[in-house]
């Protein structure tokens, strides 16, 4: 069964390996470059004296040099989806081409077949997701040291969430494919749905996954506690009247958007997720996507066992 599962999964697995190799070919040299630039410009030392004007030039130079690459890297958020739905395709091919009627009438039961087939696919997904996670996380390290890890671009392509996204895309394509039984359409729709779910979670769910902290701050200088934090809301009061409201990710070099004229009397109420929430937030979002993946996977298996003939 292992051989059979592997043989029927081989083409897609090789394509996945190809995608990973292509990514590695792009990321390994540029990643090495960034690490080198980061250490040779002593940017690490700069971070301790963030507000020292001497460093602004070096940080700026690093940005100028790599910004286009880092912008390009935002597209990486699609890669887990591509790998996930790709590796689910062989399962749907069986249903589309009727070959499930061939394999389910050999000497093994449907349950064993599903266990073997999806087991092999799952191993491929886990390995691919693992490789992707390691590659992305390593590549993002200099950037995340500089700009924090809670920015959408870095958060989405670092750590265990990458793993969760890949599993989610895989299970989503399985579930849609089990019902629809058309590989190309199911995989496409699953990918679009994956992307929609990701955008939804990023903009509507992520900030409410953890209980935020509240703090009040007087003055126009940026308070240190919001360095690299997600500021869910920032309300500026002058003489008890709210004059401005804002939110978003606050990178290391961001400044509080406080109206300049009555600045001296300004009081700012912050609601925020501090930089130290990175791992709890990663785990929470990973749990969200992995939980959804488990449900979808279970549904696909149940549907295939009970409803398909």
């Amino acid at each position, binding site marked *: *069964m292992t*051989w*059979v599962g592997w*043989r*029927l999964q081989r*083409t897609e697995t090789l394509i996945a390996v190809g995608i990973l190799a292509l990514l590695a070919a792009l990321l390994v040299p540029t990643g090495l470059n960034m690490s080198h630039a980061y250490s040779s410009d002593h940017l690490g030392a700069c971070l301790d004296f963030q507000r020292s004007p001497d460093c602004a030039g070096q940080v700026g130079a690093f940005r100028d040099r790599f910004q286009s690459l880092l912008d390009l890297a935002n597209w990486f958020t699609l890669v887990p989806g591509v790998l996930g739905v790709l590796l689910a395709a062989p399962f749907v091919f069986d249903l589309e*081409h*009727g*070959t499930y*009627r*061939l*394999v*389910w*009438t*050999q*000497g*093994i*039961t*449907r349950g064993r*077949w599903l266990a073997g087939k999806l087991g092999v696919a799952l191993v491929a997904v886990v390995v691919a997701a693992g490789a992707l996670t390691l590659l992305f996380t390593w590549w993002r390290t200099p950037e995340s040291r500089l700009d924090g890890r809670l920015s959408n671009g870095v958060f989405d392509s670092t750590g265990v969430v990458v793993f969760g996204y890949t599993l989610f895309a895989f299970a989503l394509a399985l579930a849609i494919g089990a019902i629809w039984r058309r590989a190309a359409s199911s995989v496409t729709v699953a990918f679009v749905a994956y992307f929609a779910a990701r955008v939804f979670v990023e903009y509507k769910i992520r900030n409410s996954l953890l209980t935020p902290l509240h703090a009040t701050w007087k003055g126009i200088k940026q308070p240190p506690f919001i360095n690299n934090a997600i500021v869910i809301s920032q309300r500026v009061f002058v003489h008890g009247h709210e004059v401005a409201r804002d939110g978003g990710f606050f990178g290391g070099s961001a400044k509080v958007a406080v109206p300049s004229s009555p600045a001296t009397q300004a009081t700012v109420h912050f609601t925020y997720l501090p930089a130290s929430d990175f791992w709890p937030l990663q785990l929470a979002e990973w749990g969200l996507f992995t939980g959804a993946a488990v449900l979808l996977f279970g549904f696909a298996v149940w549907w295939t066992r009970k409803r398909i*003939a």
Partner: protein
Amino acid sequence: MSGAPAISTAGLGKRYGAKWALHDCTLEIPRGSVTALVGPNGAGKTTLLQLVIGLIQPSAGQVAVLGGAPSTKDVLPRIGFVAQDHPLYRNLTIAETFRLGRKLNERWDEAFARTRIARLGLGERQRVGKLSGGQQAQIALTLALAKRPELLVLDEPVASLDPLARREFLNAVLEAVAESEMTVVLSSHIVAELERVCDHLITLTAGRTQLAGSIAEIVASHRVLLGPRSDAGSVARMHDVIRESHTDRQTTLLVRADGHVYDSCWEQHEADLEEIVLAYLGYNPGASASRSAAVAS
């Protein structure tokens, strides 16, 4: 368990939504028989066969295969199945297809598979997707036969094949029957040629079975009656009238009658299988004078 019939069903039914694809089907198929399941497209043939091999579960009634429940690990290895349009993995080679068969079956006769491929003039490194329809059908059949099944189930095996490939396919099936005690059930919407290939017959229309039994008995128990134009009532009191057709002067009846029809106003003829089957499937030539004339000559 070897004494159990190859297939026995009791009140078997399958419903999709509100529609019964198969309804109240009770029949028994003896071991060693070659049974044709005949009916128009959409009559429920595939449904019945898929219930037998356990691809789908019944909505009503029971089905026992080789004495056990379908799709269990006791029964599955003893059944061979070739689905309609004989699905195969097109990007596998023949050798890989056989390896799949070997991995998925406890009983697997590699020598048999190789011999058959050699006889078909195929190379093991050929890709299945590149073969002709007839050759693919033969590969699918070889896969089913090499597990040395006690029951071989074929769903419309020859419908998509040209006459030569059809002959070669049936030949392969029947040779396997000659070599072993295998039971065969095959569905078909083509009636011609069945008499030669099969010894048992089941007809199915709109989800219901009409005839089920040995072809010799079916043929022996039906008569064509020819007579002057009249009402079928007198015959219908004694026998089942399956079909009646009239011209302005003549009446032709197909009746189910064990033994003779003792009614002197009718001229009796043996009915041929195709005629009987078509009558049960609802074909009625109506007032076709030429057909009556042909039967009468």
